[in-house]
């Protein structure tokens, strides 16, 4: 069923998708951390982190986190009492912030790495 998207419905869509992604991520994350009982296997797993594909994955994760955080904060502010007349402003500002913070973070991250 086709329906016109707007900044606010897109914000919800991305919030939901990133939420699901992060839920799976946390499961994987705890699985990885459970290797802390054995320093050798843990350090071996951490060695994987040097792989450039994993590094790109980290950047992707950073984007996913930023999107979910900003979209979530927007909803929480509205629920806490910020006037709904600002809902579109918050959505656009949030999008700009996400892009900015991600870009700056990515530059800094890649510099550290390479």
């Amino acid at each position: 069923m086709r329906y016109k998207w707007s900044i606010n419905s897109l914000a919800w869509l991305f919030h939901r998708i990133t939420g699901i992604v992060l839920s799976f991520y946390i499961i994987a994350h705890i699985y990885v951390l459970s290797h802390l009982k054995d320093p050798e296997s843990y350090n071996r797993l951490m060695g994987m982190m040097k792989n450039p594909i994993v590094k790109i994955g980290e950047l992707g994760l950073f984007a996913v986190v930023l999107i979910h955080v900003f979209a979530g904060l927007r909803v929480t502010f509205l629920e806490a009492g910020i006037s709904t007349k600002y809902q579109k402003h918050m959505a656009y500002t949030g999008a700009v912030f996400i892009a900015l913070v991600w870009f700056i973070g990515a530059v800094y991250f890649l510099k550290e790495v390479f």
Partner: protein
Amino acid sequence: MEKYYTFKIKRFLPDETPSVRWDEFRIRLNRMERIIDGLIKIKETRDGTLTFRKSCAHGVCGSCAMKINGKNRLACQTLVKDMPEVIEIEPLPALPVIKDLAVDMTLFFEKNDRVLPYLVNDEPPPERERLQSPDDQHKILESITCIMCGSCTTSCPVFWADKEYLGPSALLKAYRFTFDTRDRATQQRLEKITGEHGVWRCHSIFNCVDVCPKEIDITKHILKLKRLAVKKGFTGDSQ
């Protein structure tokens, strides 16, 4: 100033095969005319079988709500001058289609019925009216202008997925009575709307606000209901 417009209308004829098809009609309309005028012209001069609901034709009855170029609108309030030359017209989403642009609104009205959409006050009635100050009336002013057109609930992605969700219209109706100072059923209504498919399913998507022909900020009202539920949950205070 007349111009040609192409109306692409999604037809549903249950007795035919195929039952769904798109029809195109090229008609001349004055730019200040509305979609409803186009539909009437088509029905009168091109295809008498075209079915749609229409009553007041000036934005107060809510009958002609439909999806126009991907967004729910009242056909009588949408001027063709604000539309591109090709206009896609479909019935409201997510409700069963009876024929062409007429949908079965039963589910929509059922949800309204579930929130006790009437004044509940068992106190002995006063000699004349139950009084309400202008300030008190102001609290519900926006919510009483709802014309029950169905644009909001059928534009909500939560409703699309979850047909048990009460939806913006019913929740707005719940607000209208809960925040009415003459009403005494706050507790019962809060119980009805804080269930599994009630206010907590609203994610502030704002599709409803984007389409309301009366420009009611529905999400704002739902947020107020959420805050009231929290307040009552912890302090047991009345409104």
